[in-house]
């Protein structure tokens, strides 16, 4: 996973507007994303064994966990770029923070839809007030609020400033929210890695672990690709409005 992060960082720093690289990097990212997603689908549905008690529905688990990981990664990236923006006040940092938060909300939504399906077949209830799931729900609300701040009217640097502040507050809140909810109610979730003390069958088979890791890699690559693409699009949008403004001014004078 750390290798992933390294690649991730590489992709981030090299996606600055150097012309040739700027075309190459998204292509490589796109290829890697497609290949790894295909590989993960193969591993999930054909290679890995079917879980004993839950059957086929358990397969949803791979993408559930991988999305949860991407959610966290995306909001962490928003957090880092929010701090960078407040320190340096460069628009590019804000663009990364914003795009990453938007992708994060999409992944959160995936987690929140796959979660209940899992819960239904595992605990026979659609929604469990289980720490990780509830934290994800609150995360979803926090980052929807973040996006609401972005929708305010006003000049961009004001919106960027306020959103960055909220991005920092929101992310620091996450571990506390998780901690509080875990104390509040902790009876459902199986402990996946390591030996679950009380839950039987909560452990994970080696072939499942491989499938899980590949799924995580695949979604992380997908995230980096989307981030890269989103930032490019946003930059283009900014450029277009700049040209429009210039044109308008030239016409006026």
């Amino acid at each position, binding site marked *: 996973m750390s290798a992933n992060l390294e690649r991730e960082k590489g992709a981030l720093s090299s996606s600055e507007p150097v012309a040739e690289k700027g075309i190459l990097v998204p292509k490589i990212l796109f290829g890697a994303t497609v290949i790894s997603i295909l590989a993960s689908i193969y591993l999930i549905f054909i290679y890995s064994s079917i879980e004993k008690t839950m059957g086929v529905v358990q397969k949803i688990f791979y993408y559930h966990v991988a999305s949860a990981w991407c959610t966290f990664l995306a909001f962490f990236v928003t957090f880092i770029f929010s701090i960078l923006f*407040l320190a340096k006040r460069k628009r590019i940092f804000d663009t990364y923070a914003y795009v990453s938060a938007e992708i994060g909300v999409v992944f959160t939504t995936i987690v929140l839809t796959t979660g209940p399906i899992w819960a239904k077949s595992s605990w026979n209830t659609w929604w469990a007030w289980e720490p990780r799931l509830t934290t994800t729900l609150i995360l979803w609300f926090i980052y929807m*609020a973040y996006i609401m701040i972005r929708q305010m009217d*006003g000049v961009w640097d004001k919106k960027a400033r306020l959103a960055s502040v909220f991005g920092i507050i929101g992310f620091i809140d996450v571990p506390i929210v998780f901690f*509080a909810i875990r104390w509040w109610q902790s009876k459902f979730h199986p402990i996946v890695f390591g030996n679950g003390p009380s839950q039987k069958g909560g452990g994970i088979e080696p072939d499942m672990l491989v499938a899980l890791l590949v799924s995580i890699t695949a979604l992380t690559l997908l995230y980096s690709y989307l981030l890269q693409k989103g930032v490019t699009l946003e930059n283009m949008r900014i450029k277009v409005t700049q040209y429009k403004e210039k044109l308008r001014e030239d016409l006026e004078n």
Partner: protein
Amino acid sequence: MIRSALLIAKKDLYSELKTKQVLATMIIFAGLVILVFSFAFDPANNTTKAVIPGVIWVIIVFSGILGLNRSFISEQRNDTMQGLMIAPMDASSIFLGKFLANFSMMLVVELVSLPFLFLLFDFQMYGGFGYLILVLMIGSFGFISIGTFLAALAANSKSSEMLLPLLLFPVTSPILIGAVQATKIILTNIEKLSSAMAWIQLISAYDVIFFVLCFILIENVLEV
């Protein structure tokens, strides 16, 4: 810094004393919440006692948000916010002053409405009065401090009254969970005091972290 903060708090409270608008609204609203709850849950029924801790915090949160909304909006008339910003003090003084004013008003509302609640629902306290005060204080402290901060943030929006709850509720969820749990233990099950204390510690940690964070970040919020 403290001096300017006190001046601002005094200014807000004094102007509240003159108009009595916000405080009256908050208290009447708290009364209405109690009334609605007595319709929803039969006060004569014994199981109703279980919802009292929740009702306490619903009162605090909803009447609190009314006051928080006004706190920065009231500085928009005649651009008095600019008057504060050009005065020789840090943004954190403004935050601290506003926080002190909001916190005092919140305490007044609690002081008036909670006895009323206990009276109407005929609620017997079994000891632990001091602990109840403690939970109320640190819970309100955290809620109002982050609330004041986010109110300053939301005041930049045209529809800040709608934006503030959306920002505030998810962020303060740890306080609300912790405070309701701690209040429940103290009011109904005082033997388990140690776990109430654990919750109180969690809320205090939250209070400290976010108070410091607000202090550092407020400068970025209060720019024109």
